[in-house]
């Protein structure tokens, strides 16, 4: 069982290589950011798979990673708003009217 779990963890890590490629390639900032999000989810999966092998306390690490998974993305959308402190949803109504 240990062998399988480690293999599965290694396989998830390998798929994260794909996410790395997307972070490198972009093209948009949103693409890079959500690929980093995939790295986060994969990291949660790996921490869970390691729990029976290394220590069940690894689940606490998975909880912290999952809890803060959205953290970087929130920082990103905040920072990319015009004044650096807003929310992309705020920009929508007025711009939507312009479009129509």
């Amino acid at each position, binding site marked *: 069982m*240990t*062998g399988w779990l*480690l*293999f599965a*963890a*290694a396989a998830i*890590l*390998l798929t*994260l*290589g794909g*996410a*790395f490629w997307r*972070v*490198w390639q*972009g093209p948009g*900032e949103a693409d*890079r*950011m959500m*690929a*980093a999000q995939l*790295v*986060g989810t994969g*990291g949660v999966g*790996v*921490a869970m798979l*390691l729990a029976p092998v*290394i*220590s069940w*306390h*690894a689940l*606490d*690490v998975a*909880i*912290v*990673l999952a*809890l*803060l998974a*959205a*953290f*970087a993305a*929130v*920082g*990103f*959308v*905040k*920072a*990319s708003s*015009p*004044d*650096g*402190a*807003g*929310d992309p*949803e*705020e920009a929508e109504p007025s711009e939507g009217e312009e479009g129509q």
Partner: protein
Amino acid sequence: MTVLFDLVLCALMLLAALAAIGGRGLFRATVFFVAYGITVALAWVRLGAIDVALAEAAIGAGLTGLLLLGAVARLRRAGAPEFPVRAGLVPALAAAGVAGATGWVALRVPGAGGLWTEAGEALPLSGVENPVTAVLLNFRAWDTLLESIVLLAALLAVWALAREEEWEAPVGPPLHARPGGVLEGMARLLPPVGIVVGVFLVWAGASQPGGAFQGGTVLAAVGLIAALAGLVALPRPDSGSWRTALAAGPAVFLLVGASGLALGGLLLFPPDWAKAMILTVEVFLTLSIAATLALLVLGPPQPRRMP
């Protein structure tokens, strides 16, 4: 199978670090650094150092990413240009030489020894069952006390960057979000869970991985989520209650440590009292760490621009 896993993990760490350091584009480098933080946290899980993995997950993959992405946007607004790397043979050789020498020396360090056995023998006298917490708050309490003061000093250094005319304003940028929007929903959903997780990590830290630093960081992070959505009013740097919260940890640590003077020496916790003393210190230390880290990330008071 372990070797396969280790090889893939180490390869990912190196790739992420290389891309974060040498890759073109500041934003790309920063995102790679966030990914790098996640892989480093996994490396600590792999080594079985769950205490460190928790700290790295909360700080490396959480707070640092937020700080860096904010800084990138700020530099962009300031119009600061980016430049290509000044590639050359000499820097590469110098760095490779240092890395090689470090690895060579590290591998020649005699394997035996360490302080594993000493820490294990003294553990029953420390008042806690988690050896890492015992080292942090008892055996090497000096380090931790001074560290909590370093954090405070760092916050003072950040606040010192405020402009004279903004000193009266609340800390950080004027954060806002669409009422009832996704961000606000998230900021109402996550903090209750995060507070439970943070408090659990502190409480559990006496007997299993966790402690004031890990719990405090998680609390700081969920507090920041609420602040980012504009749900909590940010304090001014001269707010009395916040200053009390910032100083409470080091102050209580020093007081409890000084009370040890009567029982043996400064920061010496006698075995019978150690558990109560350490728990008291940890509670206040968590409060101060959470407040200090959150304020460090928010930064000094900043200009109130009208959007």
